[in-house]
């Protein structure tokens, strides 16, 4: 692909260099003249009635401007179900739940005043696990669940803690149970985990004198923030402007509306004064939604020749006190149902369940992380029971584009990609069938494992995007798009497409990373690995429009027909005549004839895109087409288990995708980032709760993120470059995909190393030791002999 194009497929350098040279602006850098600081006050109970909140002492402190409590803001927010109070009202629903907001002249004063807030609570029995939440005797956390505004496809069960219930039915799984030779029934779990983006949330708001609400905040999707503010607070869209600066990481955790409504509502109460809220790290663990914990039960059957026949699942996500995107995340897990394999009979029930824990939301992978972590262990267990090689077993059942029927009962598109190809290549690259080298230390044992996954954007059928391209009088181009920049570098890939289409140097394409909703065209959200695909499609249409106008003007200048004009190397030329060319700069503002007569005026291209053919899903069966495209990946790892410390180190990781790549430098960055995040989720990261529901580890000292020392010795990323139809240069998204395979691949590798299977993430030394004691106590006996020998 590289030779065909000048820019597409090339590792064009990022142009957001102010991040490296200095000068980059994040929401946390915002300082507005006369800005007041907000400090939230949190409750020390996980479930309690609020009896009294006394703010009088705080109000006496000089510099304190106001204190607000839940009753001041009678609004409900939430993207798919409006379940969230601005500040707790009536009840607190989790330990750390904000009950008041202090506003002061400085953060110092606000912090001091916050300590004086005196509140009284009546504790209620709390629900701290999925199992407790589902018990018929469980206290109901959201008593008015049935009354919440919600999207049509969200089905809460009022009177229970079920925030959403989802069904997938394909074939007849109950009946098919009779037709199999081997059945595997297992349960997989994970603790809640954290996005742990480096920029804690920050947001500022002010109200202009004409009533316009202006917001600067750390978010992924400026238009989603605008839309949800409008919907939740009853404001007209025309009166909201959301400013997007650089955002310091998101990973799904900054996908929709975050806490923007708090500064907005406070500014409204204070006559439009600018106010600012920035969370510290501990607050960010409590006030920002995290990745839900999960409990996935699965029963999967196959015939002895290795064909998957049925799959029955009960998938539960621990939604915490507020479910935000999690009600849709469970739809994603349920509707993908299994890994990238064809199974004729599937029956899955998915539930997002409220508990008295920190709120949860989307996380890179959107439900497919949980699914892959579970189902890809299930595949290895089945393969072993069948006596079939795990790779062969996967290849035998891999989805076939144009042939296979997906879990939502659609034929998998012919251009869907190469599910078998990625598995085969990942197995080759990790040397799956070559025994690992023995470690020099006899208490360290190595093993190799693999996992595969598939995913597409989870979005409504009308998830649109648009783009505007302006030709400047020096032949350069300004591009306006709505997608957010929080590290992925989509705007660099988009610039490459512009340079390619117009034959101009990529340095002549300008796409500002900063944007405001009143100045750039709409895009639905920057989520689901959809940015390059969706905004890219809109951009290609805008470029077609632009080129069409250039040709029209040039044709009149040359006095030829429009189709006799071509655009190459930044010039409009008569086809086949090298001498008759006009540089684009001379057409940017229209064309001026020698007489002075000028035609057309400035050239501006515009394009819109909405995916064709995606539909809502049948509520009873899930039938329908939910995704404009899917991407396939497979990952292989070699791990080393230290039987003395029970620590697992990933020595090598290989990732293969089928996606076409616009910029290999950016794609590799996603891949390595996904691998390290996957290692963290697999082995290290867990949000811990104590017996009353307080977080045990709201810091980076105790919530342990992967560091340089956790980097595998070798990481390989490869793409099979399968073109996607109706996509910009055949490209599709990989951002989330790169994080998917690692939990299961590592668990499978541990099993192949020491014969111990851990079905609960993260696989910490404690959990691994417990599993070794239960499953292979002989290893410890053997180890004792070795150690004494040493």
């Amino acid at each position, binding site marked *: 692909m590289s030779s065909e194009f000048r820019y597409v497929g090339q590792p064009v350098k990022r142009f*957001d*260099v102010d991040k*490296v040279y200095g000068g980059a602006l994040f929401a946390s850098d915002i300082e507005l003249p006369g800005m007041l600081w907000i400090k939230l006050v949190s409750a020390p109970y996980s479930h309690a009635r609020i009896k009294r909140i006394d703010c009088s002492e705080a109000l006496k402190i000089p510099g304190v401007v106001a204190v607000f409590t839940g009753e001041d803001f009678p609004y409900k927010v939430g993207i798919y179900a409006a379940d969230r109070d601005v500040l707790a009202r009536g009840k607190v629903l989790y330990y750390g739940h904000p009950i008041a907001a202090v506003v002061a002249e400085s953060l110092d004063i606000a912090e001091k005043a916050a300590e004086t807030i005196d509140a009284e609570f009546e504790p209620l029995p709390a629900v701290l696990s999925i199992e407790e939440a589902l018990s018929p005797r469980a206290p109901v956390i959201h008593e008015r669940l049935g009354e919440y505004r919600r999207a049509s496809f969200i089905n809460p069960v009022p009177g229970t803690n079920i925030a959403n219930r989802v069904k997938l039915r394909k074939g007849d799984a109950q009946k098919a149970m009779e037709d199999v030779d081997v059945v595997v029934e297992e349960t997989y779990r994970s603790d809640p985990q954290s*996005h742990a*983006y480096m920029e804690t949330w920050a947001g500022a708001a002010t109200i202009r004198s004409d009533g316009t609400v202006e917001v600067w905040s750390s978010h992924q999707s400026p238009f989603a923030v605008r839309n949800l503010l409008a919907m939740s607070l009853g404001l007209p869209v025309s009166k909201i402007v959301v400013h997007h600066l650089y955002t310091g990481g998101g990973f799904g955790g900054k996908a929709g509306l975050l806490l923007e409504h708090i500064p907005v509502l406070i500014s409204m109460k204070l006559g439009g004064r600018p106010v600012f809220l920035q969370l510290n790290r501990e607050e960010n663990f409590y006030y920002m939604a995290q990745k839900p914990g999960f409990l996935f039960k699965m029963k999967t059957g196959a015939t002895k020749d290795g064909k998957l026949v049925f799959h029955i699942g009960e998938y539960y996500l621990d939604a915490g006190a507020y479910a935000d995107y999690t009600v849709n995340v469970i739809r994603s897990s349920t509707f993908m149902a299994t890994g990238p394999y064809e199974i004729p009979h599937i029956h899955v029930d998915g539930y997002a369940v409220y508990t008295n824990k920190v709120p949860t939301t989307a996380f890179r992978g959107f439900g497919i992380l949980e699914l892959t972590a579970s189902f890809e262990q299930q595949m290895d267990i089945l393969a072993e029971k069948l006596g079939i090689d795990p790779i062969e077993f996967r290849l035998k059942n891999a989805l076939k584009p144009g042939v296979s029927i997906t879990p939502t009962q659609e034929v998998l598109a012919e251009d869907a990609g190469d599910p078998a190809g990625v598995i085969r290549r990942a197995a080759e690259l990790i040397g799956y069938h070559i025994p690992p080298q023995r470690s020099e230390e006899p208490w360290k044992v190595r093993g190799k494992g693999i996992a595969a996954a598939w995913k597409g954007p989870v979005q409504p059928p009308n998830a649109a995007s648009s783009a505007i391209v302006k030709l400047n009088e020096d032949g350069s181009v300004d591009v306006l798009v709505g997608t957010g920049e929080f590290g992925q570098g989509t705007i660099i890939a988009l610039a490459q497409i512009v340079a390619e289409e117009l034959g101009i140097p990529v340095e002549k394409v300008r796409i500002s990373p900063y944007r405001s909703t009143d100045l750039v065209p709409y895009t639905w959200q920057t989520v689901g690995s959809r940015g390059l695909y969706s905004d890219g499609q809109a951009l290609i249409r805008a470029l077609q429009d632009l080129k069409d106008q250039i040709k029209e003007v040039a044709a009149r200048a040359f006095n030829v027909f429009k189709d006799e004009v071509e655009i190459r190397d930044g010039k409009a030329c008569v086809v086949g005549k090298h001498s008759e060319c006009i540089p684009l700069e001379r057409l940017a503002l229209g064309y001026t004839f020698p007489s002075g007569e000028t035609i057309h005026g400035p050239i501006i291209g515009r394009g819109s895109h909405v995916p064709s053919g995606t539909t809502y899903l049948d509520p009873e069966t899930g039938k329908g087409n939910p995704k404009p495209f899917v991407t396939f990946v497979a990952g292989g790892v070699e791990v080393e288990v230290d039987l003395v410390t029970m620590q697992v180190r990933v020595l090598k990781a290989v990732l293969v995708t089928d996606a076409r790549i616009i910029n290999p430098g950016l794609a590799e960055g996603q891949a390595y980032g*996904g691998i*390290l995040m996957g290692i963290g989720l697999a082995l290290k990261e867990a949000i811990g709760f104590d017996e009353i529901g307080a977080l045990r580890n709201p810091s*980076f000292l105790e919530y342990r993120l992967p560091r340089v020392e956790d980097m595998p010795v070798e990481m390989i990323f490869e793409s099979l470059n399968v073109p996607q139809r109706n996509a910009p240069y055949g490209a599709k998204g990989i951002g989330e995909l790169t994080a998917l395979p690692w939990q299961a691949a590592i668990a499978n590798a541990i099993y192949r190393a020491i014969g111990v299977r851990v079905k609960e993430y993260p696989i910490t030394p404690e959990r691994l030791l417990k599993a070794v004691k239960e499953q292979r106590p002989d290893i410890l006996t053997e180890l004792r002999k070795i150690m004494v020998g040493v």
Partner: protein
Amino acid sequence: MRISLTVNGVKRVVDVKPNERLLDVLRYRLGIKSVRAGCLVGDCGICTVIVDGKLVKSCLVLAAEANGSNIVTVEGLSTNMRPSPVQRAFVESFGYQCGYCTPAFVLTAHWITENMVNASDEEIARVLNSVVCRCTGYKQIVDSVKLALKWRREGGER
């Protein structure tokens, strides 16, 4: 109290409170926004700056303690708007994504090129281990450091 700091070669005199962190003084009183808070307790290394030739987490130092010291932030690596080789190496090797931790890594890399020009992979890793990044998976950051070291050893860029 009044302290004086040399920041990126310029002498700054500033009034600070006795309990004020160096991080907050650089960021809010002197307006150097590249010095960013990640955790405020020394776990993440994002607020790293160079103080008198040493890598320092500016959230763990009181501004008063830094009185009289010479401080370098990422803005101080460029001369006359021309980025330093270390900065160019980060662009060349895709050594950043969201950019929030980037100044800390660039300054750490700068310190390595100044003090450990022949550093081994293990030595580089040991120093870089003090800063957390959630986006990159570190590979391209390590590549950036190695490229900067290579340029340094070969006496100039490429």
